[in-house]
């Protein structure tokens, strides 16, 4: 398909608040992007008119119960059929921050058995506890399974900001090892927290800003078409969003978040 034919849906609900800048990133890359309220989507029933779906950051439904839990259940209850088709047709779904939490709560990630009836992982309260907004380094770990990072060489260190209080990726303790192995076997691990030289954080704060298991930043499903991450690539899209742009003599035109959006679009251009 042609670039200008691509239609991206940035879904929102009460409490979503990163939809505008997420749309802006896609706009910049020349695809059609629409921010749609869930209520509107339920009314229109036209999810399948879109080629890609994005759950942006925010505090959907105030993040009451657990971050992302209410929105995840709402989506499953109201849009289950369309969503299932969307997933089976390998149309890409991206979850950023609260969106990642939604994808995990909805059972779409890690998605060992397609859409799991119960969440298989959680994005738990940060350790140390509390909201934390800072720029961090992440290392690309994926071997080209994840369609959202195919334009990023493996081992590359990227810089993006995190801003959340519930981003500690965990599995149930007794299945931790087993699940981690599956992530590696399926090539589902996408990014891990590291320092600026690429050394893994090994859980050390603030290099790992939330105490995430195995320094996990983001994962994809076994097909590589659903991807969630805690940092905000849309806030690392332009050069002037970077925290130290005033001290760089030669500034690249874009930030490290851009290749994620580009990879997604390239996948759509080739695949459909």
């Amino acid at each position: 398909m042609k670039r200008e034919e691509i239609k991206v849906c940035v879904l929102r609900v009460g409490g979503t608040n990163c939809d505008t800048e997420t749309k802006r990133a896609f706009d910049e890359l020349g695809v059609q992007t629409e921010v749609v309220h869930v209520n509107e989507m339920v009314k229109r029933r036209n999810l399948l008119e879109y080629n890609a779906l994005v759950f942006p950051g925010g505090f959907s439904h105030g993040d009451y119960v657990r971050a992302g839990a209410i929105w995840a259940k709402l989506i499953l209850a109201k849009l289950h059929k369309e969503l299932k088709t969307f997933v089976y047709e390998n149309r890409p779904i991206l979850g950023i921050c609260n969106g990642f939490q939604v994808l995990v709560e909805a059972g779409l990630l890690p998605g060992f058995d397609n859409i799991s009836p119960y969440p298989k992982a959680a994005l738990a309260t940060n350790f140390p506890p509390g909201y934390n907004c800072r720029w961090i380094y992440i290392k690309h770990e994926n071997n080209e399974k994840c369609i959202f990072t195919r334009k990023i060489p493996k081992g590359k260190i990227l810089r993006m900001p995190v801003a959340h209080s519930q981003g500690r990726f965990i599995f149930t303790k007794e299945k931790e090892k087993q699940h981690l192995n599956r992530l590696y076997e399926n090539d589902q691990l996408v990014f891990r927290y590291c320092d600026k030289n690429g050394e893994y954080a090994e859980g050390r704060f603030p290099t790992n800003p939330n105490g995430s298991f195995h320094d996990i930043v983001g994962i994809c499903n076994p097909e590589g078409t659903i991807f969630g991450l805690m940092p905000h690539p849309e806030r690392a899209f332009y050069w002037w969003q970077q925290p130290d742009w005033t001290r760089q003599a030669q500034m690249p035109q874009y930030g490290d978040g851009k290749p994620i959006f580009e990879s997604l679009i390239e996948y759509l251009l080739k695949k459909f």
Partner: protein
Amino acid sequence: MNGRLYKRRKTSFPLLEINVLEANEQQLLEISQETSIGLNLKEMKAVQEYFMKRKRNPTDIELQTIGQSWSEHCIHKTFKGRIKIDGKEIDSLFKTYISKATKKINPNWCFSVFEDNAGIVHFDEDYGIAIKVETHNHPSAVEPFGGAATGVGGVIRDVLGVWADPIACMDVLGFGPLNYMYERIPSGIKHPKYVYMGVVAGIGSYGNNMGIPTVNGAIYFDESYVGNVVVYCGCIGLLPLKKFRSNAKQGDIIVLAGGKTGRDGIHGVTFASAELTEKSEEVSRPAVQIANPIEEEKLKRAVIEIRDLELASAITDLGGGGLSSAVGETARRFGCGAIVELEKTPLKYPGLAPWEIYVSESQERMLLAVPPKNVDQVLENFEKEDVEATAIGKYTTDKVLRIYYKGEKIAELDIPLLFKPPKITRVAEYKPPNFEEPRFSEPENLTETLLQLLSAPNIASKEDVIRTYDHEVKGNTVLKPLHGEYGGPNDAAVIKPLVDSWRGIAVSCGMNPNYGKIDVYWMAASVIDEAIRNNVAVGGRRIALLDNFTWGNPEKPEKLGSLLKACEACYDLATAFGTPFISGKDSLYNESPLGPVTPTLLITALGIVPDIRSTVSMDIKAPDNSVYIVGQTLKELGGSEYFKLRGFLGKTVPKVRPNQAGKIFKVITKAADLGLIETCHDLSEGGLAVAAAEMAFAGGYGMELDLRNVPCKDCNRNDFTLFSESNSRFLVEVSEEARENFKDLMKGNVYAEIGRVTKTSRLCIYGLNGEVAVDASIDNLLTSWKRTLSNGV
């Protein structure tokens, strides 16, 4: 309650008639107290007179409406009243100083000032910037989390109340020392640490949940804040000016949208217009509202959509005084009356008396005036966002407010009455305290002194707080509160609000209550200078100011006297710098069993950065670049952090010399535009030494400076030169290539090259005799600066 004074009307709902007609003076005061309306005798007599003429007694809702409208919080009696001082009489501080300054400057870029919920200035040809800073001290003292959160929620609605989309928040806070001894806390007052944690969490929670970045702020610690926490919440919004609507007329429908109404926040304004007492918690807890940021997020979306579709004729927020203020103020502004059918108000739970519904300050509510033909579409837009909205009345031709409840008329008041409380005349006096300059010899180890200063609570890094606020959401924060890898303290925040324009907004603040303990006039002058120079340092210009006063009880002549002095300085400095005031807010009666608050003026500066690509940050950039000091250093250490560290207050407080200062601001702006400066940092608390240390560790390089080159009057000692807090000074870094051009540009100003950036990772400062006065590694400086708050003080 005295049965003779209150009579229950025979209605299916609770409604009292209050016998003011037959009440004597003592009984009038009794009524004021029992109904918690907080009016004094003169005002109660005016109420009595009004109803005498109408030959009937008021209902409870009428009395409450008058009480709310006439409260200090709503009508600013002190700022608009008459003041007698030294045989002179001043009619309105506001008109005499604040708005007069703006009128005298008369800038053509002000769109609406002092009229609406927020001031509006032009951003570019099409867009305006709305800005407001609120005080929320009283609620935060009683319930820190809720008080601070609703403070943020309230100021965001102020911005929304001029049709602007909120794009950034600023928060300036004042707490008692966090290590304050528990034994010294009297009953009814909460420990500063508890207050601090609650307030910070409340602010973070609201801003983060709504997705509005908190980009600028400050935290001050002062003993007087133990009993009187200071919470200033600010918000900036953006609006397409041609979508601004403020022209409601008779027949327009009154639509109430947002959260439901409950008993939270009853008498918030009366509470905020009184001193805090031991019983405040018990008595006034219901006066603090409950925050629900997600509700406001949805409300915001719907309001912006309605704005863009041009469906409404006016909007205002429901803040202090609830419906009573919002309906009354809009009716007055548009020269209308209003009919309200109060039973239509959606309630959180049944059982509220009509007067409670009318004065409740439940959060997340907005009031819109909508032409009848657009009402359905407006309601639909709210419904789309899951926001409840209801038509509760309409504006009428006569200037009368009529309130009905289930068909029964329960209030009929003339609108003008609500805005004409008896004018008060208060007496003010001002005697500047006479302190002495301390005498002590210069410490031998100034490196140690510098490390201690960097750890002083008012200077130390506020990173632990700043990182709990999302300062990046919306992806438009160009200059962040913490700069670069080491988190250096930027002087101001810069935002780039539009996708297709490089134009930016710079926002900064100035506050220094310690100077006010010596001289309130020079405190006010200094903080105006500080707010402006912070803005100038990053590349801001065309600066507008906001004033926020936190003062003690204005009924005490000396408190009012110092308020007047601060206002004088506001006028003098604003006119001298050509920086108009565009909005403000005062919080008076900040007194507790521990005593009054130290007079605290916050000045917020809003500037424009024509092209954000020329924004200047505060971290030094490259070895071998030259370091210049711009501005005159004087032996002005009164109220300084250095004196405080030594246990003194001092006498010689920093003054402002507007002619020199104005020239310096202009030349710094010019140098930034020409690309001649790599780095710029303002000198404030801790003076030259602290500023240099911050620049060094933020940039990761060392510096070698020589005090002998610092242009300084009477600074015969290293410590004075290092730590003087003279105003209007900057440290700038200039590259070898730009040096000659920079020097040409600076001709005629007080400035000097005082050293250079080094590769050594050490800050080394040579003293007045050529000796090494300060020598510290930047790691050591950074650690000292960062340790205070992360150790919980």
